[in-house]
């Protein structure tokens, strides 16, 4: 969207509130919702990618070397930590 959401007037909304620009969800930083985040212990990570596969929000990216880390779409749900084969992911509370 061209304008921040809280400045758009009703007249500027497209008919049916249709979004004409594909992929606009990319602009929405769902990481803001997070109250905890995953931390990988690399020494125990076997780079299997189960965390990347089970993440419901594409919140995990592959890093150079085949390891994984969260990106700014991670909502902190903890599914990756629950499903990690070696238990190398722990969920850490967010701090201000």
């Amino acid at each position: 969207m061209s304008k921040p959401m809280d400045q758009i007037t009703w007249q500027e909304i497209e008919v049916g509130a249709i979004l004409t620009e594909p992929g606009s969800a990319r602009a929405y930083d769902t990481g803001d919702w997070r109250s905890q985040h995953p931390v990988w212990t690399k020494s125990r990570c076997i780079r299997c990618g189960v965390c990347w596969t089970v993440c419901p929000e594409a919140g995990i990216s592959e890093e150079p070397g085949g390891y994984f880390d969260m990106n700014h779409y991670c909502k902190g749900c903890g599914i990756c930590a629950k499903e990690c084969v070696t238990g190398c992911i722990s969920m850490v509370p967010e701090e201000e």
Partner: protein
Amino acid sequence: MMAAKAKPTAHRVGMEVSIAVSHAVQLARAEAIAAYPITPQTHIVEHLSTMVANGDLDAEFVNVESEHSAMSACIGMSATGARTYTATSSQGLALMNEILFIASALRLPIAMTVANRALSGPLSIWNDHGDIMAARDIGWIQVFVENGQEAFDHSVMAFKIAENHKVLLPTIINMDGFILTHVVEAMEFLDQETIDKFLPAYHPRFRLDPHQPVTMGAFAMPEIYTEMKMAHQMALTESYGHILKVWKEWGDLTGRRYQPVERYKTEGAKILLLTMGCLSEVAEVAVDEMREAGEEVGLLKLRLWRPFPFADLRAAVAGAELLIVIDRALSLGGAAPPVLAEVRSAFYAQPQRPQTASFVIGLGGRDVAPPAFKEIVAQARAEAQTGPTQEFHIYGVRG
């Protein structure tokens, strides 16, 4: 009903009104239909499905397992840019409820006939307006028809109104279940060429297209939800002018002219009855008899229910002392039945306003004959002197 002006392209045929509606939808070249049968609407979609099966209508007919799915499928098909139609009644409309709001919020120009029927419980298959009044706030354009000819006319016009790019709102044609759906009436049909000229193919403003992707039905954060509702409210309010334009064009074509609030023998009337749907024809008979007896009684017929025609109503009531509002539904535990609530709101802030009286009548298929309106007028006239004894009366209730 105004006398139909004979046109060389038109011919009159006696037919069950439900079948006439299905022919209107066929003539309108509906491309997508999803429906589930429910009494008393069934004949409409039954005939449409036969037409599709026989190759007489080039449309996709989707059989679904519920009305919830019917409206969901209609939304999907309309979103692809197809001219979309469905019909339902009572419990079916209730089962569609959550999807109805989505159809209008997405601004999809679906046309739907509601064969008005009482809601359960107790189970009743017969007519009243309880079904549509429970779906009053769905954000659709809503009209009421009085007889078969009007049902045919409005079934065609609904598509033209809904598909106008300045409107783009789904539209409901309300017709009384059984009393109208199952009656056989002589109606004037227009030929395909005339209808095609009146109603060209639908060109959607947006549609689901893999080559030009859009998002329909995205969620709204608190920062934007209010603005979206405002846009919907304005679209529905402003559809008024476009509805009238389509009605005028149809009037020029057929000689049958429609107004948001129609007047019958209102000249000099001190007392006005206000009715909707096919009760209006019964009330006309009563008004004729009362006029012959020298009573200054007239009739207003509310055709357009959403957007509500406030200005038309105020203009039509001007000069009358007593307005008797007839509802065919209840708002249980509320201050007033639905039509009365709207009418009173229309007049509350006016410096000059008529007294109102409220009668609920014809619930769950109870028959209403002309003498009922005479008794109602007599009772309302008496209460206008003494003050009403209650907020509203349920006419004819025993005990």
